[in-house]
């Protein structure tokens, strides 16, 4: 049975926090891209590096994340979340997802980061 948009968003979040890079990548395809404050990340190789770096250097064991809100409309997913760790806090972050055929075609991300 096909996943709902909210299920895809929640599983993406859970896979990332669990450090399961392969599960994260399984939700993207070669045409996928991401837009972040640092720019555009296109294709599976670049996305793999981005998420690998995120798992290794951002979502370290001291970092606790919490989804505040997950909503969807049509094929659009939207999440508000926050995080706190020893080196930084993220009091606000939001991701938008464009879903097609059970894949994340587009993900955008923005956040407020406070270094400690």
């Amino acid at each position, binding site marked *: 049975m096909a996943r709902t948009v909210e299920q895809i968003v929640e599983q993406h979040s859970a896979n990332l926090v669990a450090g399961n890079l392969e599960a994260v990548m399984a939700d993207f395809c070669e045409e996928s*891209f991401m*837009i972040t*404050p640092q720019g555009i990340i296109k294709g599976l190789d670049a996305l793999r590096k981005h998420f690998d770096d995120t798992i290794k250097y951002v979502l370290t064991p001291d970092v606790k994340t919490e989804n505040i809100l997950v909503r969807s*409309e049509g094929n659009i997913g939207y999440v*508000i979340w926050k995080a706190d760790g020893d080196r930084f806090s993220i009091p606000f972050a*939001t991701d*938008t997802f*464009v879903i097609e055929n059970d894949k994340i075609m587009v993900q955008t991300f*923005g956040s*407020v980061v406070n270094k400690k």
Partner: protein
Amino acid sequence: MEKTVEQIMLEHTEACLKGNIEEAVSHYCEDAFVVSQNGVFRGRDEIRKIMVNMAENVVTPGTKHEILHIYSEGNIGYGEWRAENDHIAVLYAVDTFVIRDGKIAVQTAGIVAKPK
């Protein structure tokens, strides 16, 4: 000549900052929707209410507005910004746009704002 996604975003930003509500609303498809922390707003009538709220409470005349980043890829636009006036500080905001036939079909918005 067809407008680029970034041109559409910048024109929409300008209309919002000038309080040109009907012009801002005209930038959306009839069946557009906006997803934000406050909910999902479907169709131009509901989106007009957001524009009115923004004009009356957030980007009032004299607001200092700063675009932090603006990117586009395919039909997706992304903008981060902040703003300040006498009664509110928008510490951080990020918008994602899905553009269809030169108009905004989907917008997601996240904002961190503090009244003064």
